[in-house]
């Protein structure tokens, strides 16, 4: 028998989807700014593995010589990014949703098992509620990263007025590096997130739009782990 099971509250769905275009615009305008002083590389023992970014990449995305434009977009959308984030965190804390989200003392061990399961190394995954252990860690980390972006961003934006933030970030240089590295982190998160959502399927995706999942309730419940349907 089909049953509707409530999953994501309205506020979480809204803040999730509102964040998507905002973060995209922040990353894009951030690249317009970064281009003007594009000094970061991944260099180990004198060998440069990655250069942020190669010329073909800049050309492809029409990035060069748009610093002023990038700043103008960045300093507008930073408001929406921050306000949306504050709203999400307040909601999560006040509603008690944080209990589903914040890792507990089992999460780190369980997340490893989830990872092995997802890589098809292990047959079973640990039982879970709304989110599995890996999701708890990932989704909490992404919120902390968001806070990190706001703090490092403010430190770079007004380093004299907020010099205590610059100090907190370990200096102006490090603040800019962290700000950049967090953005790379978002991109990696996004890639894995999208793959997981695709693998988890329609029922899971739908729950982030309409809020519920449809489950088949069997007369005699069998012990099982419905992990495949609750990912994303």
């Amino acid at each position: 028998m089909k049953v509707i099971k409530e999953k994501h509250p309205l506020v979480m769905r809204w803040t999730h989807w509102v964040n998507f275009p905002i973060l995209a615009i922040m990353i894009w305008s951030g690249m317009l700014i970064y281009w003007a002083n594009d000094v970061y590389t991944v260099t180990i023992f004198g060998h440069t593995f990655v250069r942020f970014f190669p010329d073909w990449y800049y050309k492809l995305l029409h990035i060069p010589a748009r610093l002023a434009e990038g700043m103008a977009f960045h300093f507008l959308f930073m408001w929406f990014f921050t306000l949306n984030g504050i709203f999400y965190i307040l909601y999560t804390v006040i509603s008690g949703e944080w209990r589903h989200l914040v890792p507990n003392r089992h999460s780190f061990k369980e997340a490893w098992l989830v990872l092995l399961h997802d890589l098809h190394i292990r047959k079973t995954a640990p039982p879970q509620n709304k989110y599995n252990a890996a999701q708890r860690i990932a989704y909490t980390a992404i919120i902390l990263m968001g806070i990190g972006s706001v703090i490092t961003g403010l430190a770079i934006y007004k380093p004299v007025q907020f010099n205590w933030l610059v100090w907190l970030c370990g200096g102006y240089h490090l603040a800019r590096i962290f700000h950049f590295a967090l953005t790379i982190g978002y991109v990696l998160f996004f890639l894995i997130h999208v793959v997981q959502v695709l693998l988890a399927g329609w029922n899971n995706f739908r729950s982030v739009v309409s809020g519920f999942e449809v489950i088949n309730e069997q007369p005699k419940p069998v012990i099982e782990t419905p992990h495949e349907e609750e990912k994303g």
Partner: protein
Amino acid sequence: MKKKRVKKELTVEQKIQRRNFISFTVFGAFAAGTYGGWKWLYNSPEETAGITAGAHKPLRRALNATELFFRRLAFNENHLVKTYPKSMAAKVVRHNSDIGSEGKLPPENWKLQVKKKSGEVLQITLDELRALPKTEIIYDFKCVEGWDQISHWGGVKFTDFIAHFKLQDEAKMEYVGLETPDKQYYVGIDMPSALHPQTLLAYEVNEKPLNGQHGQPLRLIIPVKYGIKNLKRIGSMNFSNTRPRDYWAEQGYDYYSGL
């Protein structure tokens, strides 16, 4: 007998369909609205060229409002830029641009022209400035491009300059405008930033007179602003209650560019 129309309870299947329909309609409308809003903003007209130019109209309004917000929230003349020991100052001081300050200008051929409120124009020589107490600062100079460098500057504190030349009335105005002798480069500075205790009219870098690349004979060093506001080779100074013209603000950058 009255016919009773009993509203049948929806089946689970109907509930699912109904909720899906509503959510995905709203979701689609949100997506379309976002796309439309973005297209509108991305293609929004450029501002009318004036004191500021080169930015999308709505973005310029946002820049101005945001700057005002942060100035009210955080600007305080007691917020000082961090200073460093002399050993950390760069030996080779980076320079980006010399618009308006190319080549050499012998100090004896140079005078700082200060336009007073009364219309009187002061003609100040470098020796007069050197005779005033010298202030030095070693701080992290920040370029709008994203690089920064610890550098060592020496000169007259802007507030000392105001006091010595009796420009207190002028300093009550809202802005100070600075231009190079050839008028090629020009900046406008809000008075609270100009009067910040670390703002200098600098004539030395690394304890030597400024050379051509750093805007000899006299330049502005204003740690609460990006490098674009640190005008090299000051030729004239004026005061006003409206924003003076500003080279980079005419090219899409924030007028205040405060740090």
